[in-house]
């Protein structure tokens, strides 16, 4: 079977669990930015881990199914409509051949995930179906989807259950105000004391330049770095370093002005000092932030980061159990 894109939405791409192992060549992880919502969508339609889905940013696409399908949508808060009839989010439903799937505008959240039983069946590239637009490969022809695209869907391994739903207590909580926990490190020591304080005290808003590569934040006090004689090869600005690798989730502040958090299509390295890293448990939250939503950065230590990670793992285990 196949899905036809009648309207493409703002930035709709094929994504899966990601493409690890090539970061040393500048090829980033890619994959769904909100991995929790991505996994939920797959579990709802009975797909195996790693199946590919559609990730839709800020504005949903309009789809038509060319054969009977079982579908689930998770992530951003918007009402799915099948031939104009409202369907439930976080719940699997059946679509018949010729049915059209449309959505309302996003009330909250920035990324919607649409899973279909059988998974989006584009070719594997370096072990993943994820789209990496900067490198122009993966997904459908290495790009975001356009009207008229036809996406092949794989054969479902088992008969998917219709009406499978995620218990309310296990659903995603979306908000316009988010706390992002940060483990200081990397080049944190280069930051002046008052900048350390203002960075964690200020409220930062998502700038329009927020995409799969990174999220830029504005509205906080500009940060100051300690003066120094530039090390050989580093560049003259105090925020420069000898070009180095950038961790996923790391926060760089070019010229001290606007923090950028790198996400799953990260540029793999560069010459800006990073002052810490958003912990793994909070990376999904970034994916659901719309421009102008606000964030506070909360300083944590490694024990707190690991506790948050364990909590997330436990929540995912409960979700998986509930949808099994």
């Amino acid at each position, binding site marked *: 079977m196949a899905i036809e894109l009648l309207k493409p939405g703002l930035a709709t791409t094929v994504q899966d669990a990601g493409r*690890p*192992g*090539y*970061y*040393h*060549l*500048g*090829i980033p992880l890619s994959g769904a930015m909100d991995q929790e919502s991505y996994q939920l969508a797959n579990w709802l339609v009975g797909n195996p881990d790693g199946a590919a889905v559609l990730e839709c940013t800020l504005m949903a696409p309009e789809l038509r199914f060319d054969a009977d399908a079982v579908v689930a949508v998770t992530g951003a808060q918007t009402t799915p409509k099948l031939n104009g009839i409202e369907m439930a989010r976080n719940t699997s439903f059946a679509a018949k051949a010729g049915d059209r799937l449309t959505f309302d505008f996003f009330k909250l959240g920035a990324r919607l995930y649409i899973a279909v039983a059988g998974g989006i069946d584009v070719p594997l*590239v*370096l072990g993943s179906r994820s789209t*990496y637009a*900067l*490198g*122009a*490969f993966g997904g459908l022809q*290495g790009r975001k989807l356009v009207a008229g695209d036809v996406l092949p869907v794989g054969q479902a391994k088992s008969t998917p259950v219709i009406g499978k739903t995620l218990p309310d207590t296990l659903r995603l909580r979306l908000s316009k105000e988010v706390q992002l926990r940060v*483990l200081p*490190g*990397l080049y*944190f020591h280069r930051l002046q004391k008052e900048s350390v304080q203002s960075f964690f005290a200020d409220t930062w808003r998502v700038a329009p330049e927020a995409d799969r590569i990174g999220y830029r934040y504005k509205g906080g006090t500009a940060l100051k770095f300690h003066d120094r004689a530039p*090390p*050989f*090869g*580093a*560049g*003259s600005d105090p925020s420069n*370093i*000898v*070009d*180095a*690798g950038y*961790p*996923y*989730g*790391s926060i760089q502040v070019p010229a001290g002005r606007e923090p950028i958090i790198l996400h799953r299509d990260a*540029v*793999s*390295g*560069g*010459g800006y000092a*990073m002052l*810490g*890293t*958003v*912990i*793994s448990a909070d990376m999904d939250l970034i994916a659901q932030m719309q421009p102008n939503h606000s964030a506070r950065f909360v300083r944590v230590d*490694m024990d707190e*980061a*690991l506790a948050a*990670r364990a909590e997330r*793992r436990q929540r995912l285990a409960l979700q998986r159990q509930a949808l099994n």
Partner: protein
Amino acid sequence: MSLPPVSSKARYTFGGDEHVFVEISESMSLPAFFKGMAICSELKKRAVPGVTEICPANASYQVRFDPDVIAPEAMMRCLQDIELSVGDAQMDLQTRIVEVPVLYNDPWTYETLMRFRERHQDPTSTDLEYAARINHFKTVDEFIQAHSSSPWFVSMVGFVAGLPFLFQMVEQERQLEVPKYLSPRTDTPKLTLGHGGCFSCIYSVRGAGGYQMFGVTPAPIFDPTQNLPYLKDLMVFFKPGDIVKWKPIDRPEYDRIVKEVEAGTYQLPMRPVTFSLKAFLTNPDSYNQELLQVLHGN
């Protein structure tokens, strides 16, 4: 050869709960790069469970790991152990030397640099003229000669897919240094040979960039369609540790290579080589001559 010493102790820091970042040295040097490479190779050899990415960089490296498999403290200790165990012997590198053809002073980067003149330090000259002047060369040709006569090390691959950063294999005082554009361009032709700080690079894809533009190579170095023989194994050509010799070419040769690339028959000249850091540091110029003999010999 005067080289800044590599501090005996690298700086270890966590990048969140999934990365260890290790700064071998704050400043760029070949020994710092080599030490990072040696540690990364040894880590790869040890196949430590939980390690998902090993990324050598210029004077640092980072490792991504799964903290559910290996605890962050244990991961860091493992890297510190390897640092202690890495000896001189591991400063030898099995690698390859590659000859990359370059049309310096080409029409496409010229057109681009003219479009972005207001972002440049010296709007009245070209990038090459500016680079030649601030590095005290009388002519652009002399600068090109200095840029292309000694080999370069690929000290990092990244930023975007397949983009190599290259470090010139000469004494620090002879290294060509040029600042980046005052403000980055929004466009750079694909396969531009760029230079910023002490690093050259080849832009693997078209896009934004802040490095000075010196020329273009007709040889693709990143291609998801993997059309050329040397890209059949992997869509990315360069690896950290590769040695590159730039070969200045003229427009007819550029056009000839482009035709071969389009036909899918072009092959980059390359040879396997063992690089010894110690031998290099003892006498860089004569060691470089030996490397070039490997490249051009039978």
